[in-house]
């Protein structure tokens, strides 16, 4: 637990630093939620709400990465989920029918789960490298989404309850935040209260040893990609509901990179094994806050990428014990006179 806290320390510090910068730029209102029209608002709450889709995808991605995998197709799956739901709803006269909305959501989730399972099957049963297996759907997926929408951007009537998924609130808290929190809790329970987490880490840490220990590693791999696909689909639904429309080409564009980034900022290694759901959450909030920070401190949009690079670099370096040792060396009392140069990777056992 202690090492867990240590792992989270640096991302949390970065997040706090970002929040402080924002408060300095725009005042304390940034962090304090306000209620208007029975709905929680305010800059920070908005960030959380907008981060919900990324959060969902990053959670799924965390599990995939724990198995030594990666899923590049989530952005395309996001678009497919959004496209299915919107296209189905606009096809009907009464866009407010509960049955219609329910079946649109259900269909979108089933299809995205199947896509996830397909990715998992390619990885587990056909032995294709995850980055390649999911690259296929990354390329084809947006095509599929466009095929569903016929290249148009289907617009759901603002009155349709479907949009509540992205705009509504329960007990004044925006629905996307509820959904993200629920999925977080569900995945946390699923992995930590059952043995799934252990088995996942085992499969990611050493697939062959796991197989010989009798673990259904292929089944677990498929399950994990399925969950990741489902999360991406759900994220697409929230995104589509928020806008009331589905943009097959641009919806969730490059979200896979942000999701991977969030996972890694949160302390999960891309080499598989240990995973940290809470860390991922912090990673997501950092990324969400960062985008607002650029606007709040008044930088032009050309700065978006540069600022992101700087923050990611800072997190990556701060998380590295070697870097901390190197930077702190002048301040540490050294027992020996002859201080050795930073001997790299030395006490890190083989991968």
């Amino acid at each position, binding site marked *: 637990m202690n090492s867990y806290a240590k792992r989270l320390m640096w991302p949390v510090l970065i997040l706090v630093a970002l929040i402080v910068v924002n408060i300095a730029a725009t005042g304390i209102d940034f962090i304090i939620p306000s209620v208007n029209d029975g709905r929680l608002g305010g800059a920070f709450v908005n960030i959380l709400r907008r981060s919900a889709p990324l959060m969902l995808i990053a959670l799924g991605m965390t599990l995939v990465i724990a198995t030594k995998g990666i899923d*590049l197709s989530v952005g395309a799956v996001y678009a497919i989920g959004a496209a299915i739901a919107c296209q189905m709803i606009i096809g009907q006269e009464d866009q407010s029918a509960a049955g219609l909305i329910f079946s649109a959501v259900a269909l979108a989730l089933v299809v995205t789960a199947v896509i996830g399972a397909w990715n998992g099957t390619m990885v587990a049963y*056909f*032995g*294709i*490298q995850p*980055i*390649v*297996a999911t*690259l*296929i*759907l*990354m*390329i*084809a*997926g*947006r*095509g*599929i*989404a*466009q*095929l569903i929408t016929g*290249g148009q951007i289907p617009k759901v009537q603002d009155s349709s309850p479907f949009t509540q998924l992205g705009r509504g609130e329960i007990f004044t808290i925006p629905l996307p935040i509820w959904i993200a929190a629920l999925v977080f809790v569900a995945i946390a329970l699923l992995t930590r209260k059952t043995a799934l987490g252990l088995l996942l880490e085992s499969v990611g840490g050493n697939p062959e040893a796991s197989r010989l220990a009798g673990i259904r590693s292929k089944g677990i791999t498929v399950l994990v990609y399925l969950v990741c696909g489902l999360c991406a689909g759900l994220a697409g639904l929230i995104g589509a509901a928020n806008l009331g429309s589905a943009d*097959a080409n641009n919806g969730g564009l490059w979200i896979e*990179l942000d999701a*991977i*980034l969030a996972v*890694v900022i949160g302390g999960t*290694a*891309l*080499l598989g094994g240990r995973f940290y759901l809470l860390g991922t959450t912090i990673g997501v909030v950092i990324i969400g806050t960062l985008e607002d920070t650029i606007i709040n401190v008044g930088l032009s949009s*050309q*700065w*978006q*990428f*540069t*600022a*992101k*690079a*700087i923050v*990611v*670099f800072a997190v*990556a*370096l701060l*998380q*590295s*014990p*070697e*870097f901390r040792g*190197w930077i702190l060396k002048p301040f540490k009392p050294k027992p020996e006179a002859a201080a050795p140069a*930073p001997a*790299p*990777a*030395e006490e*890190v*056992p*083989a*991968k």
Partner: protein
Amino acid sequence: MTTETLTERPARSTLFDGLTKYIPIGATVALLIVMYLGGIANFKNFDSAQVIAGLFIDYAPLLVIAVGMTFVILSGGIDLSVGSVMAFSTMACAWLTVDAGISAPLAMVLVLAFGTLWGLLIGAVIHYFNVQPFIATLVGLFLFRGLTLQISDTDVSMREVDFWQWGMTHVEFGGKVRDGGFWLPYLSFVAFAVVIVAFVILHYTRFGRGVYAIGGSEQSALLMGLPVARTKIGVYAVSGFCASLAGVLAAFATKSANPLANVGAELDAIAAVVIGGTLLTGGAGFVLGTVAGVMVWGLLNTLIAFHGGLSSWWARIVMGVLLLAFILLQRVLARSGEKRRT
């Protein structure tokens, strides 16, 4: 001393003895040929020699970054910054020669040096600070896209600088295209040269063999006393150099710089390397496989272009399906060749 000599034969099937490592690339090349023949059978003018030559014109920059990527992947790493570094390099060429008025050859050298330096830097961060390559280079992806946009948020023309004409100056082989000949610009030869040099370095120098050793097991390479630090940093320097060289080639190819160029090029490069039979886990693969991978990538696009009847979305879907078919076939061929434990 002993009287008996200890003998052990490798357990693998004798037919493929020693050839197993060539199976993935063999499968790639075989499928490449099948694809090409399929194109000829179905499309008019597909048999023109210029169709193949065209691959080495349009994909010369991709080939160069894919070669750099091969080094990185062979060592067990990954470099996501290449697309952005490439765009940045093209933009820097334009900026230095058009705005700053520096002589073009000097600008080119500066850009190449900068790309290499960036590779050294990020390699050092990865090695000494043990930062995951994916993240360290993702920083590069964002950083250089940002810097490129900060230099200019519009496209810039370099046509006034004569030096940039050199790359597209071309050589004809076997007469005009109409007469069954084909032509290649100088920049294609630069790409060929990069491939040859990379091949020689990877297979015939200590640095190259060290790359394979580290990809096999970094820990072992360290314990064997190999210069791990130098090699690991070296591969990122190679990749940085290749990315900036690709940027320079792009400058030659279009004589213009566009801040949004090459978005996603890193994925194309990774795909080409992996299709060419290199394992992402490192230690196994060939630079010639990468050439085949780039050709597969290009030929798939060419096939779709020749078909011409696909809408935007069907083109993407067909591309995905072709890629899938390719990878599955490659898998099947490779599996039946290998005799491994289940």
